[in-house]
């Protein structure tokens, strides 16, 4: 049986991991490469590198980091942040990314997903959506959750999947940062609309939240989180043992 995936997300700015990461035995706590190696040794099923570099001239640092990581880490790497064109896909795929996550880029240019899927295959194209409840509906937000696009989220996701997105990351703005658990209602709604793998993001505060996620919404195929892993609040090997103990199939 396929296992549920646990995915740490690393925010990278100007070639360094943002936010202090504190692990024993990790000398350079802001090195994306060192951190990627650490997570790979410690049970991560996949890694997401999110490029939050603001300026184009520093973007090359990100691809250098990606290339170095991909040469040392042999698990799937997804890259997001600043992906607006097919050239952006090309740039990160050449450096060792396996999947490319598109968010605002797909909102600005709705044909991007279809064109990328045609060139690189559906499996390569990940739709990432920031969703918040507005007036009783799920609404798509752009620019890191700052702008309400006015678009209804479920139909947007459906449209992107039929255009060729092979996976969907659902980030609930309503639960993000609250650490009160994943947005089960939102995830259930998305899972019932699409047949591609759905990755849950936003809200994890404890190991129990992951158990609840996979038990309550069995269609969800992965849980993604950042700070709780980076700050050592949840250790992935321990999390996976906890999941396995609750009858959830994981790669140990």
């Amino acid at each position: 049986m396929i296992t549920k995936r646990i995915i740490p997300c690393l925010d990278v700015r100007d070639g360094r991991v943002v936010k202090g990461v504190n692990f024993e035995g990790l000398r350079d706590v802001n090195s994306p490469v060192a951190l990627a190696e650490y997570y790979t040794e410690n049970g991560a099923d996949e890694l997401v590198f999110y490029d939050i570099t603001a300026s184009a001239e520093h973007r090359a640092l990100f691809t250098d980091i990606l290339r170095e990581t991909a040469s040392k880490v042999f698990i799937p790497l997804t890259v997001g942040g600043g992906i607006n064109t097919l050239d952006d896909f090309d740039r990160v795929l050449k450096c060792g990314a396996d999947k490319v996550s598109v968010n605002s880029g797909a909102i600005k240019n709705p044909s991007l997903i279809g064109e990328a899927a045609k060139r690189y295959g559906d499996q390569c194209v990940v739709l990432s959506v920031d969703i918040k409840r507005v007036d009783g509906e799920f609404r798509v937000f752009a620019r890191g959750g700052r702008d309400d696009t006015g678009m209804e989220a479920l139909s947007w996701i459906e449209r992107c999947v039929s255009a060729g997105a092979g996976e969907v990351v659902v980030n609930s703005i309503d639960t993000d940062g609250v650490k009160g658990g994943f947005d089960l209602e939102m995830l259930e709604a998305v899972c019932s609309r699409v047949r591609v793998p759905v990755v849950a993001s936003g809200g994890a505060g404890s190991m129990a939240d992951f158990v609840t996620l996979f038990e309550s919404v069995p269609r969800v195929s992965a849980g993604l989180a950042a700070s709780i892993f980076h700050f050592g609040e949840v250790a992935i090997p321990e999390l996976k043992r906890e999941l396995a103990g609750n009858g959830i199939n994981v790669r140990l």
Partner: protein
Amino acid sequence: MVAIIDYGVGNLFSLKCSLAAIGAESVVTGDADTILRAERVILPGVGAFADAYAKLCAAGMDKAVYAAADAGKPLLGICLGMQLLFERSFEYGEHRGLGLLKGEVIGMEGTLPAGLDIPQIGWNALHKTKESRILANTAEGAHVYFVHSYYAAGCADSLAATTEYGLELTAAVEKENVCGCQFHPEKSGKVGLDILRAFCAMEG
């Protein structure tokens, strides 16, 4: 030396790096002579079957694959590269493949029980169906990383391992010097590197 066939399909950077990580020299090449001089050959590939097969033939690499296989060189197809080794595929129509292995490639859509995501993306367990050289270093039940919407069926005696995803899907095949993995050994952590090691230890 391992020749990784470059025919304009997919990203070969990780594959080359994973071979370097196990101490295997490799070259990414679209040159038939280089392939024939190599001790072993990898046929990678992602994307759509028909497009990949057309590109392979347009680059003259189909002949290089046949020549390598005929010369008894260990040949490893990965993901779509594995699927190309079979007789035909039903991905968007019916298309012929290299025919080095008996069997055909069919879609998950319509054959898988309802409720399963398509594509299969993620880590799944290998169940060995016979002794093989490619999985000589691999434990029963070891997890490897899959990304696919189509799978090989009717593989007869080449079937080396399956994985359970609603159905028992072909995960690895081996017949004499020709072998293949539906999963990505270069993305399957230590288990994957061990499979590449086993391939690099295969004698023609």
